[in-house]
């Protein structure tokens, strides 16, 4: 078996993930390489979820009974865990949403309805990049259409990185918000936060970072990122679906208006008007995803028990090995950085003229789960003149043997369509 420096003890870790023992298609061992789409859930998180429903289930912030108090303590405890995980200065800066898309839409809507100096209107500009997931494109397109603001973006270099050569023309005095992805879900690129943040701060623009593909894989520190908002989702980091996070700087959350109205987010309500609860509750209308938030808290405990720096090292070693092995496959073209430097553990590629759908289907028959398509980042496919890609993405339980299986599987694909 291939031994690489920096690898985690996956043999032990994989025991935490019952699903990884599954066999598919007549006895094929599952090789799960679709972690950028969603990660698998360890038993530790599953146990917390069942225990919550078996012992503590109640609505939060409402009842005076025992279960309500326990559920509230668990839910708010999860907020503490998230705050610590991302080194937030205050737990009140952590807003629970249903996913990263909702987090990003929330920021766009806060700014659309805000007063000066935050208000996005027809005299202002919004900046994104060409490598964004649709969830960090469409909310801004909607905001631009509704307010008349101008939407601008950074283009990409041929090797899959942001082209910042014209940064001073893209981010200008008119820019109100710069929203970009920390690690691209399709290219794997890790973006240079500092250069962008510095320019945004120069012109007084806010910065929003989509950390959906970063928070699960590396230590996160919202203070060192120096962003104003950071969005990510629970299900890509061993948590359940239905829970996302928006972190925002406290003074912004105090100043900016709520988006969704309803229970939980108010202070007082009369038939004429209402006043709002302080953040984060101001942005959490209605019954929140309680068990999901608690599940995310358990996922964070799990990740911390391994260590985010160790997970990063593990995935870096795997990525290094994967780009090397994939480079040996004839006709394979990596879309994105071709080395493991400044990149995450999601690797997109094309295989000659064979359509990714067909690649994915033949891999699936061998038990290998990858993602095929445009990965909700169609502009990237357009930029590189390809209809779609096949993407393999790794996580803390992925192994070199699984990368070998992928490479063998691709050989089989080539023979099949050869």
């Amino acid at each position, binding site marked *: 078996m291939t031994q690489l420096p920096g690898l985690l003890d996956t043999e032990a870790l994989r025991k935490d993930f019952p699903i990884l023992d599954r066999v598919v*298609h007549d006895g094929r061992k599952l090789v799960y390489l679709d972690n950028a789409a969603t990660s698998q859930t360890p038993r530790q998180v599953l146990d917390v979820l069942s225990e919550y429903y078996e012992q503590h289930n109640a609505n939060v912030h409402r009842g005076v009974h025992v279960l309500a108090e326990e559920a509230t303590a668990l839910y708010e405890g999860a907020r503490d865990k998230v705050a610590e995980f991302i080194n937030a200065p205050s737990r009140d800066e952590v807003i629970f949403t249903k996913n990263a898309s909702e987090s990003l839409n929330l920021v766009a809507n806060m700014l659309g309805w805000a007063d000066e100096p935050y208000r996005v209107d027809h005299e202002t500009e919004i900046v994104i990049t060409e490598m964004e997931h649709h969830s960090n494109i469409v909310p801004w397109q909607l905001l631009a259409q509704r307010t008349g603001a101008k939407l601008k973006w950074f283009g990409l270099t041929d090797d899959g990185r942001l082209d910042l050569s014209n940064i001073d023309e893209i981010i200008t005095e008119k820019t109100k918000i710069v929203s970009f992805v920390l690690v691209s879900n399709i290219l794997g690129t890790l973006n240079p936060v500092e250069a962008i943040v510095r320019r945004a701060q120069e012109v007084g623009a806010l910065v929003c970072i989509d950390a959906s593909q970063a928070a699960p894989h590396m230590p996160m520190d919202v203070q060192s990122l120096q962003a104003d908002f950071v969005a990510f989702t629970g299900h890509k980091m061993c948590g359940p679906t239905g829970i996302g996070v928006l972190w925002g700087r406290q003074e912004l959350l105090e100043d900016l208006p709520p988006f969704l109205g309803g229970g939980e987010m108010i202070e007082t309500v009369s038939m004429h008007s209402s006043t709002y609860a302080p953040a984060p509750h101001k942005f959490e209308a209605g019954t929140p995803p309680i068990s999901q938030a608690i599940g995310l808290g358990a996922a964070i405990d799990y990740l911390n028990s391994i260590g985010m720096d160790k997970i990063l090292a593990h995935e870096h070693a795997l990525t290094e090995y994967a780009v090397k092995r994939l480079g040996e496959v004839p006709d394979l073209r990596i879309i994105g950085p071709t080395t493991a430097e400044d990149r995450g553990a999601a690797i997109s590629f094309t295989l000659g003229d064979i*359509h*990714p*759908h*067909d690649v994915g289907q033949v891999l699936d028959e061998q038990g290998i789960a990858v993602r095929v*398509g445009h990965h909700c980042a169609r502009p990237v496919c357009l930029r590189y003149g390809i*209809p779609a890609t096949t993407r393999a993405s790794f996580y803390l339980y992925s192994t070199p043997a699984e990368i070998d299986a992928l490479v063998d599987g691709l050989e089989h694909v080539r023979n099949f*369509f050869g």
Partner: protein
Amino acid sequence: MKLDSMYQEVILDHYKNPHGRGLRDGDAEVHHVNPTCGDEITLRVKYDGTKIEDVSYEGQGCSISQASASVLNELLVGKELADAQKIQETFLELMQSKGKIEPDDAMEEVLEDAVAFAGVSKYPARVKCALLSWMAWKDATAQVLGGADAERKTA
């Protein structure tokens, strides 16, 4: 192997040597996409009265969607509209069967090469690939005939 039930030799042949590919003169043109995977097709139909004179197309996509467009061209060009509609409906029925229809002789007579797609119907994610060009054809035909049931998308 199960995969062979999807990738029948007939399908791979059509994929590698497509019939009637390329855009030619037409009475109507439609562009359909499969948003989940990015398959695209631009398709034109040309009618001589109620007879299909040509179905031309250009697109990008997986072997299933491309082969299906080729089979469509082979089957429908030269047919009377009513016959073509029957073929389209039969193909749709087969593709929506979730692998439960074993094509009999009667079906095979109607569908000819298109029966090879029976195996695809077992793969829900790929049924849309197989139907992409057929839905585009139906839409284009409805536009030519000014039909009210024009479907803009295959989604």
